[in-house]
């Protein structure tokens, strides 16, 4: 795309946007070349930074007229390349639209612009005794608009749900620049329920310009117990045993030995470095309830074969227990030049089998893997350690990652629990979904965006892409896991 074309388009956008809201200098555009998945990079034609809804509408009208691809972007923390720019399109950054418009104490909701950071919502309503529950690990930085696009999760999903479960209404600018709203503040809407379609649609069905979030009362009490295990299987079974007691923990996280060691070296949380697995289980609620249940959980862990249990004696120790888990990714980053985070989900009962499979693949590829696991909801994050400076190692890592995801599908799971498909998992989508199912996704997309200008090339692979993928991955005329029964 020529510099002239860039200049011509920039001039068109400056007819209604302030000059500084149109980024067209290559040096400035460089900041938008990638999101959290930095292995993929592309320079967009322009980056646009609207300040309000009407500017978003004007931008979309012009893009619609020009059939320009539009990649919307929040804080750029996506781990799947969802905000990777299109070389012949614009990046629509919602970063300037970062105001909390309204907080309603009585109905426990807040209306916010898409660029508001996840954690900023909870901080703004803390004095009212309320908070916004979903807490993806990137919550300091990630924006609510991005959370909606990805249906972001977090460590408290088992009890408090995903982004979808905590959204009451959306205002959306469609591909043609017209506004539509999905309003479920009344806990119901007649007609089709479009909220689950929009939430997690990776910017392909519209530009979210206003979000009404549900707020919850801050739990009065939170306690954490840690179980130390000499096998991952016992740790996994203990999670099932806790649930069998009728307890839904606020969070249950598991780490395997390599992850424990990396975290301990980094934050000194006093983790047992010889353990094969640790479970960190948090309960929250009223003091009476939590105190009764935490004892029960500790007993269940002991019965499940924990070689040691530790009950955090105070808030400082609770945060210390969590510090290692929350720092697991950067901790792994310290011991390896690069790491690649995988995001499969599996039925919990398959944990031991999947981890054994991951270990085998890790040995086969000669790449170490550390595992952190949202054990309550089955979301597994193997972190593959590699060095991008070694010729071919990134490709090898991606292949290993793909094998791990296929293992998740094989065990009745899914290729992405919370990071999204983006550009990263298009190939695996060809395995998880049949051609007819993928066609249905494309047909739905065209209901919202007939010209296919919103985030083209992401999330849903084209027929051609799958033909290419399958040609590459069919060996001896057989697909991997031919016996595979898709859930």
């Amino acid at each position: 795309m020529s510099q002239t074309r860039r200049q011509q388009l920039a001039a068109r956008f400056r007819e209604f946007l302030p000059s500084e809201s149109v980024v067209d200098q290559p040096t400035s555009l460089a900041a938008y070349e990638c999101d959290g998945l930095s292995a993929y990079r592309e320079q967009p034609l322009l980056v646009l930074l609207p300040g309000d809804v009407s500017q978003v509408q004007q931008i979309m009208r012009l893009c619609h007229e020009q059939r320009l691809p539009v990649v919307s972007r929040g804080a750029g923390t996506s781990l799947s390349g969802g905000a990777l720019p299109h070389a012949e399109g614009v990046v629509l950054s919602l970063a300037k639209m970062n105001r909390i418009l309204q907080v309603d104490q009585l109905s426990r909701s807040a209306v916010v612009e898409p660029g508001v950071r996840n954690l900023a919502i909870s901080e703004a309503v803390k004095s009212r005794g309320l908070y916004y529950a979903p807490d993806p690990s990137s919550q300091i930085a990630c924006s609510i608009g991005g959370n909606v696009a990805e249906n972001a999760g977090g460590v408290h999903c088992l009890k408090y749900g995903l982004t979808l479960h905590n959204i009451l209404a959306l205002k959306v600018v469609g591909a043609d620049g017209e506004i539509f709203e999905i309003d479920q503040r009344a806990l119901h809407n007649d007609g089709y329920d479009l909220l689950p379609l929009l939430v997690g649609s990776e910017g392909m069905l519209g530009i979210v310009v206003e979000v009404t979030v549900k707020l919850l009362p801050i739990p009065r009490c939170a306690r954490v117990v840690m179980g130390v295990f000499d096998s991952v299987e016992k740790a996994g079974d203990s999670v099932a045993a806790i649930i069998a007691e009728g307890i839904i923990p606020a969070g249950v996280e598991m780490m395997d030995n390599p992850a424990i060691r990396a975290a301990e070296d980094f934050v000194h949380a006093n983790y047992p470095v010889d353990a094969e697995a640790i479970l960190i289980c948090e309960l929250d609620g009223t003091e009476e309830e939590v105190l009764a249940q935490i004892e029960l959980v500790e007993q269940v862990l002991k019965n499940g074969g924990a070689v040691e249990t530790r009950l955090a004696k105070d808030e400082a120790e609770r945060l210390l227990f969590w510090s290692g888990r929350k720092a697991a990714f950067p901790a792994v980053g310290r011991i390896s030049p690069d790491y690649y985070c995988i995001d499969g989900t599996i039925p919990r009962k398959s944990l031991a089998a999947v981890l054994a499979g991951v270990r085998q693949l890790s040995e086969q590829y000669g790449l170490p893997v550390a595992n952190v696991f949202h054990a309550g909801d089955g979301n597994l994050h193997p972190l593959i350690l590699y060095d991008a400076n070694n010729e071919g190692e990134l490709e090898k890592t991606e292949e290993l990652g793909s094998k791990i995801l296929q293992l998740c599908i094989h065990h009745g799971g899914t290729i992405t629990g919370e990071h999204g498909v983006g550009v990263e998992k298009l190939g695996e989508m060809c395995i998880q979904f049949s051609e007819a199912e993928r066609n249905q996704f494309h047909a739905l997309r065209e209901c919202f965006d007939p010209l296919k200008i919103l985030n083209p090339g992401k999330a849903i692979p084209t027929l051609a892409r799958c033909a290419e993928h399958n040609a590459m991955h069919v060996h001896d005329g057989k697909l991997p896991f031919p016996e595979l029964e898709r859930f």
Partner: protein
Amino acid sequence: MPVDIPDVSIEDELRTQISAVAASGAEIEIIGGGSKRFYGESIEALPIDVSAHSGIVDYDPAELVITLRAGCKLAEVEALLTEQRQMFGFEPPRFGADSTIGGMVASGLAGPRRAYAGSIRDFVLGVKLLDGRGQVLQFGGRVIKNVAGFDVSRLMVGALGTLGIILEVSIRVVPLFETELTLAYEHESADQHIRWVNELGSEPYPITASLWHDGRSQLRLSGSEQGVRHAAALLGGDSIEAGWVEVKEQQLDFFDSAEPLSRVSLPPATPDLLPGNPQLIEWGGARRWLCGEVDVAALRDQLAGASGSLCAFRRHAADVPRFHPLSAEMLKLQRNIKSSFDPAGIFNRGKLYPGL
């Protein structure tokens, strides 16, 4: 007594049947147990009974997920869940002994706990669907966290079968509570109740249902013995025998009437817009049942201004549109969505809106 749910698949027969219907240009009405057939517009179409498609595909209580063929009877599934000390979080009404899982999902109707635990939509994890081309499609899965592809499975909730025949559905289940307690209070006006119950929402009380009718409020508390006892001590009120099944199944005297029954949906803290009318208010103020003759069109206009809507739920005149009208643009979008699943418009056409 162990629950015995019939294990019969008629998937192949349904596929053949739908392919033939699609080729002939006929229209069909999907029938499960028939208990919720009153809900939505009446349509003239060939009835197809899918209730024989029954069986538990997968249920491991520790995974908190159950996968069922859509013809399973709701009553039997709930009995099975109870055996495992689990339940559906959304407290679905049956409205009849034969109601099925498919009908439960398609109608999207939920009971008193919905405002506190979530809707059916929130608990559906995956579906297997027979579309209007006679294709079997699967979306979502059997795991709680899954963002691969658009979330088509949840779109089926409340779609009243207009997008296809639900063959199987995976639903998240939750543990039974250790204990429950119902408290009653005198609140003369609906507004008193609405304000009070929404103010309570800012405190972490274990509330799982609320109700106001005829000058009296009720709250249900659920959870651990200690938690419920402690909350009850703080909340005061009179402890009473629970009647939540009657609320859920609409068996209270309030519902036993020859008059039309309307369902008014509003953001929960909205003040009473219908003073003087006989009302029963649930869901912390978000669902307000109205019994009696009303000017539906005028009331819909008034409610729309307050972000609300009205569904002509039961016993309304035949010419009253059942559901709150959509804007022209939204109707067009929803018709396109229907066409993408059901291009010839064979499934329950007109059940929701004209052409939908």
